[in-house]
């Protein structure tokens, strides 16, 4: 498992966080929604607004490590009006894909 949310990934406990991981079967980047579904759209992710909510989200997300996802982490996000995006470049690239033109277009999901 990657660094759990409240440690190195988010030293500032005031940050808003979402749970992200990779789908166990496909490796695809996924975010945990409020209903417990792991899906690809960060805008549908459950947002933890404080330390207690983050710990609770982490705990619920960890139950999915057995069968559904791998490499779980809580990551800081930034709200921009109605939009949500990861704070760190690494996570922006995870969310949106490589910043370069790929030799072939991505498959439809």
């Amino acid at each position, binding site marked *: 498992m990657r660094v759990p949310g409240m440690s190195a990934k988010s030293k500032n406990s005031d940050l808003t966080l979402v749970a992200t991981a990779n789908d166990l079967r*496909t490796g*695809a980047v996924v975010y945990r929604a409020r209903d417990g579904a792991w899906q690809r759209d960060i805008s549908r992710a459950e947002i933890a607004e404080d330390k207690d909510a983050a710990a609770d989200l982490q705990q619920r997300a960890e139950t999915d*490590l057995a069968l559904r996802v791998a490499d779980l982490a809580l990551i800081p996000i930034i709200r921009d009006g109605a939009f949500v995006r990861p704070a760190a470049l690494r996570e922006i690239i995870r969310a949106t894909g490589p910043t370069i033109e790929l030799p072939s277009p991505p498959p439809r999901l």
Partner: protein
Amino acid sequence: MYRYDEFDHDLVRERVAEFTDQVARRLSGELTEDQFKPLRLMNGVYLQLHAYMLRIAIPYGTLSSRQMRRLAHLARTYDRDYGHFTTRQNLQFHWTKLAEVPKMLAELAEVEMHCIQTSGNCIRNVTADHFAGASADEIADPRPYAEILRQWSSLHPEFSLLPRKFKLAVIGAPKDRAAIQVHDIGLEVKRNEAGELGFAVWVGGGQGRTPMIAKKVRDFLPEADLIAYMEAILRIYNQQGRRDNKFKARIKILVHEMGEEEIKSAIEREFAAIDKSNLQLPRDAVERIERYFAPPAFDTRFNGAPAFERARETDKEFASFVARNVHPHKMPGYAIVTVSLKPIGGTPGDMTSAQMDAVADITEQYSFDEVRVSHEQNLVLPHVKLEDLPAVYARLHAADLATANYGLVTDIICCPGLDYCSLANARSIPIAQRLSERFADPVRQSDIGDLKIKISGCINACGHHHVGHIGILGVDRKGEEFYQITLGGSGDETCSIGEIVGKGFSSEGVIDAVETIVDTYLKLRESPREDFLTAYRRVGEAPFQEALYAHAA
């Protein structure tokens, strides 16, 4: 080419079956990720930023057309229709689904390929000179020895849990085209005064966060002692290498801490004590492997190549391609051809399935069914008839594979960086693309001449930046990508580690900075025949620092 015997086939098939079961147990929840991770890594499966990544070994960089077509098939069927050739003669698929890995491994096994030991703290894929068996300057083909080392090191029980990963490279010519002095062990095949074959042995080189040039521990190791001597080195490392600190666990640190003389003595003592009864390499065993690498049936009736000469006189682009990408062959009438995977503005090392198929067809028709992968992220057609070069060029051109930039400023080595890699701190591919576009003009490239730019997206140095004439290292500075430049590195027989030229540059500034360095070189070189590295070694860092930073002082 080497062909699997029944033992190889059994070993690989058994491993595929074993890993198929392990994947099923992971997907069913029977194995936790902590239990599964070391197992998947042993089979070349990483979890990167966007997906799983499958790393496929290409031993000593040699492929047949059948194997290349299978890689194309895997790209089309299981991945996103392309693959990425790395600096360790591997191929990586970046969009692999774990559930499909067992099928991919089974399909690879059918063409005598696997992913074993492409990760983990073991002896990794053995690399070799990509011009092996073809180059005019060769003493002996290094690949039979690389194959012997592959067989010896595959699933070797004593060396499967080393302190850290361990990389071997072998060359068979005085010209080092495999960067052996920045490997854990580098071997140079040579002859002694009596004409007997043996090896110069280098130990303790490497890049990463602590770059080191290897020490020569034997100037001539007799051929028969190869395996026993490797065991002696590995045994010393296994016993004395540090396991308390991952960043100090490579053999280069042990060599550095013990000192050159002490490590030599320790190896020699172990070698003297070792039971060699089962470790001697008899000549007939070497010959049995050498037969797999016997030269192809060259046409020895060379009597000029008129079609080649005509094309070179009438087609300027073909002439440029010949000048840069065609190299002397040991057999009159033949040439070695570099297929550049560095199109202007492209991703270094990437290749679509259609291009793989095109190269497979060319390989089969024009290069005795052999193609090579170089650590410089290009392909090599090792045995092309001079008279066939115009046709080969036309076929490569049709597949967008005829970029005439071998060894030039746009022939950039570059790791996947933060666009793919979970270890990276900064993007490297976009920097390579923008540099390539900045220097795209072929006349300008030709004027600049030989110049190796190498880019890594983190200190692990997969992009070999330490041995770039111009090296670029991406770092994370308070959440922003920053790029540190080193100058004067070289991975050849004159191996040197680049020196940091000064403070780093932003992603915007680094392209201009490289251009400033190149322009400074053009002004200070004594003649166009003095290449960048030679000029740098003559004048040192100062003129480049002056050009880069004087205005900021």
